[in-house]
């Protein structure tokens, strides 16, 4: 086959340098790829472009994101998946797999040795400084023994094809390797959308790997634990791979927790759940080594659990991977790996590594200093973001500084040969062009060996000429196909979720942080809806005014504007100092209350708060929810508070916002189970709506107005409450205060009435799990019951009695005020009972020590 016959690949080989996956050195097409080429040819350029857009769309729809630090776009950068996969034949893969397994076994033994006997040092296989100078060598982890068969439970090897055509080991990831969730989501996306590309290609699926992964976690539990409680520890939503943490939690069915959801007590680790403390047996951690225990490791870490390491030492919990495993993410080991392999296994390494010179050895150091420009120099313990020197690009001064640094701390540095890794076809702007790729593979400990995911995550350089490949820089990913000559099963969702030993999480086990976020999601959502509707009512009234010149109209407007300030608590606004000026140009103030996200109480700010608390719950999201959520964000993105918008324009924005928020609320109700925390969300939602309804009533209807004004106020109130039609249906009469109060405040069966809302809050609070210390809940119940009894037994006539001056309804105001206080107290009691984070973790000795 010839590339020129394939339109889409035309020009592919024009300036190829180095090894390419598609075109062999003799300029022939690698036959593993021919079927894919045919498939691409037969769907054609148009279709392929379409396919790529669909993948992009699906990734955005599914909310697959990758956070990039210091990116102005902040959270939620869409994950990019290229339509053209990376391919390797099963025959070659089997060799690679064996090599990865060998390396995993080897690293496991190194890890065990370095925190144990240190025979590698004593028997002079590895110079001690390779470990001692590595910041990942945690002396606190010395001599810890584990109940698991292996110390290294998850291993991620990064591989790339070297100039000799073999796959080389580029990096070892052993602390908390990320990427398997992205790899799986990539596979789902390509299977769903790009099935035409799969035509007659048999791709191996990762289903059994994920089953092994789950089994590994279950078996990792300390001995004698049958149904272990497993949690996934995340640093939180600002972490670059938070999507994946939530994704795995969802996939495997384990709670996603942050450090402050866990605590150490009586020698065990416990999760703070709604019901109380629940013992944890296994922590799958996505938090780096030094952050996991502020008592013994990094003292100012808020991402870990104080005292965790001691529980590990006593084998009362298993942390996956074990704390301290960062020591084997160590490029200083590379030059010694083959010797280590011979030492332990009496055999050579199967997979080649990049030629490396550890500067701690005199001969090697001299060689490096002499030839430094040829090399890439890095710290043996470099994290992703520091101390990586491509010496060919450094100035003479920079070289001198680096050399001096090497001479001063020689043990710290390793020099590696600069390798041109292979390129693979990549779809880019209607072309297919070669790009450098790196593959991340995943292995988990299994019985006597390691189970390797067939394929993995492939990352692509962002430019055609780019040599470095890194997601931190916003790269593109690829699905990784290991192709077989035999037919393979299709990927199935949840096949690894074998029910044995797994039970669904119930509300008692809901981590208290997550419960708190659900509660606040409810509150923010309630506030957003009520605020939007009320602002819309105010804007519509401005709109009507231009067709009307009656005096009361401007009066009703003033009342509405003041109510806006009241219910959003955005003083002074239309009420306090300077309000006369503000009232002259009300649109400016209203627009600011809609669009100014820096203003507390504004709609934009409420939506943003909602955004934040909701984002931390993403393991509960359904795909439909993400889509609606995203559509709200897209709707708002073009609006700019510094521009001027018309009344109509703002109303349109509010209309759309309201309908999307309502759609979203509907989806929450149908997508999240009560036991997953929906109850807590409802309580938050109802509390917020109730308290805003009270605020509306207090600012609009406790005063007495003359008839026309009264009519207009009532109409606006019903409007803002979306209850005008119901009123007409229920009363079929002229608008009267008593009937409005009967409907909006006292009705026992109307879902938007205050009485109904109080009843609902009461019922939901009575369904909450009973915590270990019950007093808080008992008091909470008594407050809400009192509030409900109060509103349920109101006599409308008595309530609305006017004062002697006929201006004000004292009873009404007093009742609303009491209801408001009771509601507030209920909310506080609920927070302190269930989401008690008031005690902050602090250091006994305040000091800033970097380890």
């Amino acid at each position, binding site marked *: 086959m010839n590339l020129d016959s394939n339109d889409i690949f035309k020009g592919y080989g024009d300036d190829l340098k180095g090894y390419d996956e598609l075109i062999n050195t003799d300029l022939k097409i690698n036959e593993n790829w021919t079927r894919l080429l045919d498939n691409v040819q037969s769907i054609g350029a148009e279709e392929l472009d379409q396919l790529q857009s669909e993948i992009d769309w699906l990734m955005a729809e599914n909310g697959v994101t990758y956070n990039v630090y210091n990116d102005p776009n902040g959270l939620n950068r869409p994950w990019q998946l290229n339509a053209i996969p990376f391919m390797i034949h099963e025959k070659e893969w089997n060799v690679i797999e064996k090599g990865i397994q060998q390396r995993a076994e080897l690293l496991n033994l190194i890890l065990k040795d370095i925190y144990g006997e240190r025979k590698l*040092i*004593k028997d*002079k296989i590895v110079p*001690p*400084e390779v470990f*001692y*100078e590595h910041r990942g060598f945690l*002396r*606190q982890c*010395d*001599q810890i023994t584990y109940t698991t068969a292996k110390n290294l439970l998850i291993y991620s090897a990064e591989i790339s094809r070297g100039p000799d055509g073999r796959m080389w080991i580029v990096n070892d990831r052993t602390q908390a390797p990320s990427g398997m969730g992205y790899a799986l989501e990539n596979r789902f996306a390509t299977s769903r959308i790009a099935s035409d590309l799969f035509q007659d290609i048999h791709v191996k699926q990762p289903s059994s790997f994920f089953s092994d992964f789950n089994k590994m976690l279950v078996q990792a539990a300390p001995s004698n634990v049958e149904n272990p409680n497993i949690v996934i520890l995340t640093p939180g939503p600002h972490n670059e791979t938070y999507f994946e943490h939530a994704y795995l939690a969802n996939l495997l069915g384990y709670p996603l927790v942050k450090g402050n959801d866990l605590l*150490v*007590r*009586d*020698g065990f680790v416990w999760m703070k759940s709604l019901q109380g403390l629940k013992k944890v047996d296994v922590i799958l951690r996505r938090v780096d080594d030094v952050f996991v225990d*502020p*008592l*013994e490791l990094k*003292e100012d870490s808020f991402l870990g659990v*104080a*005292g965790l390491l*001691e529980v590990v*030492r006593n084998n009362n919990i298993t942390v996956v991977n074990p704390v301290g495993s960062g020591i084997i993410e160590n490029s200083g080991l590379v030059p010694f790996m083959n010797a280590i392999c011979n030492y332990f296994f009496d055999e050579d390494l199967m997979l080649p590594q990049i030629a490396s010179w550890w500067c701690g050895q005199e001969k090697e150091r001299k060689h490096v200093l002499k030839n430094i420009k040829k090399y890439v120099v890095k710290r043996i313990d470099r994290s992703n973001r520091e101390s990586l020197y491509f010496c060919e690009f450094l100035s003479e001064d920079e070289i001198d500084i680096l050399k001096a640094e090497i001479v001063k*701390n020689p*043990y710290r540095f390793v020099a590696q040969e600069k390798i041109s890794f292979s390129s693979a076809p990549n779809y880019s702007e209607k072309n297919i062009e070669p790009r450098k790729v790196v593959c991340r593979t995943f292995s988990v400990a299994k019985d006597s060996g390691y189970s390797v995911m067939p394929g993995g995550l492939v990352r692509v350089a962002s430019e055609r000429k780019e040599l470095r490949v890194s997601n931190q820089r916003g790269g593109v990913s690829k699905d990784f196909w290991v192709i077989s000559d035999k037919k393979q099963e299709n990927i199935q969702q949840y096949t690894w979720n074998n029910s044995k030993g797994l039970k669904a999480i119930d509300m008692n086990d809901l981590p208290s942080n997550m419960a708190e976020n659900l509660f606040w999601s409810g509150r923010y959502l309630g506030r957003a809806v009520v605020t939007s509707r009320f602002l819309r009512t105010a804007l519509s009234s401005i709109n009507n005014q231009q067709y009307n010149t009656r005096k009361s109209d401007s009066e009703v407007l003033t009342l509405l504007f003041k109510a806006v300030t009241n219910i959003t608590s955005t003083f002074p606004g239309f009420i306090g100092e300077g309000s006369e000026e503000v009232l002259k140009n009300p649109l400016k103030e209203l627009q600011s209350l809609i669009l100014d996200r820096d203003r507390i109480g504004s709609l934009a700010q409420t939506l943003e708060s909602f955004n934040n608390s909701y984002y931390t719950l993403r393991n509960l999201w359904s795909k439909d929810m993400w889509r609606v959520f995203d559509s709200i964000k897209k709707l708002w993105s073009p609006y700019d508070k510094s521009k001027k918008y018309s009344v109509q324009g703002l109303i349109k924005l509010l209309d759309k916002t309201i309908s999307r928020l309502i759609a979203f609320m509907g989806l929450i109700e149908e997508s999240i189970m009560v036991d997953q925390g929906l109850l807590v969300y409802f309580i938050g939602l109802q509390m917020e709506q109730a308290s805003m309804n009270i605020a509306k009533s207090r600012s609009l209807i406790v005063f007495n107005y003359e008839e026309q004004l009264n009519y207009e106020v009532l109409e606006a109130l019903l409007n803002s409450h979306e209850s005008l039609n119901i009123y007409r249906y229920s009363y079929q009469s002229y608008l009267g205060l008593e009937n409005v109060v009967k409907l909006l405040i006292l009705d026992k069966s109307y879902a938007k009435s205050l009485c109904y809302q109080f009843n609902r809050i009461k019922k939901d609070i009575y369904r909450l799990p009973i915590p270990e210390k019950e007093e808080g809940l008992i008091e909470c119940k008594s407050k809400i019951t009192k509030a409900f009894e109060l509103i349920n037994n109101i006599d409308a006539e008595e309530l609305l009695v006017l004062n002697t001056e006929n201006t004000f309804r004292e009873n009404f105001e007093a009742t609303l005020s009491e209801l408001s206080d009771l509601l507030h107290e209920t909310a506080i009691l609920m927070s302190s009972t269930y989401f008690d984070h*008031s*005690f*902050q*973790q*602090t*250091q*006994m*000795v*305040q*000091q*800033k*020590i*970097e*380890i």
Partner: protein
Amino acid sequence: MLFDIIHDTTYKYEEGVTFCHNIAILKPKDILGQKLDSYELNITPEPASFSERTDYFGNTITRFSIQSYHKELKVIAKSKVNRSFEKERQIESDDKAKALTLNEVCELLKGVDDAVLDARQYQLESVLINKIDDKIKAYAEESFQQDRSVYEASYELMQRIYDDFEFNTEVTNVATPISEVIKNKKGVCQDFAQIAIACLRSVNLPARYVSGYIETLPPPGEEKLIGTDASHAWFSVFIPTFGWVDFDPTNNQKPKNQHIVVAWGRDYYDVAPLKGVLFSSGKSELTVSVDIRPDPSENTLLNLNQQQQQQQQ
């Protein structure tokens, strides 16, 4: 000499603490020349969990948690230590080791016997002794030359720090970087020990941090020694073929019977006497006092020696 040591640490919390996890390194070593006759650790309120283990460096680490609400934490370590430094091997009587030059020591450090392999990690920078700069190296090189005896040079380094640095409790804290200490030439025993260690490491010598106590009131006729706060600290250099040799730059002398060893490590970070994580929202106030008395049963003629220092933070 027999000593009774009472090390009393008290934390007062404004808002109270719901629970806390702590680590203490307070147990004096039981080694050649220093016998630990008795040791007890009293903690109030009573800890819910308590355990002791030997850490990587061979120090005794005590871990405890308090799970009940408290507004005051009291940790009192009482030790009876019998000090007889004459029993230790003395480098002064090992002429060969005493004469080893920097050159020779560096060559011997390439060896791989267990003691050397272990000592090699103390050549490297550590948590608090990091970014050893040229200023420190230059200061070290005034004493250390390739063909000069390491023992002699270390002794001189101790004397120079004693002469050049001002003892001052106001200017530094546990996290003050060594680069600042070398610039201001002020600090406490911990700073002096760490500066000395940085100097030794800058010329590739293994050096470690020793924490312990010092008896400050001397027998009649001898000079009074200076202690800083609760604990004292000094440094130790590894001389191959011999072993570790201690020097106290704060008092310009080699530790003898008035120095009691509690722990050693790469720097203060490895041997902090008491640290912890607690759950509280308010401020705390710390009081530390150390009381060292020669045991009256043995030294009836000596005056009682008592020192109390207070430190607030």
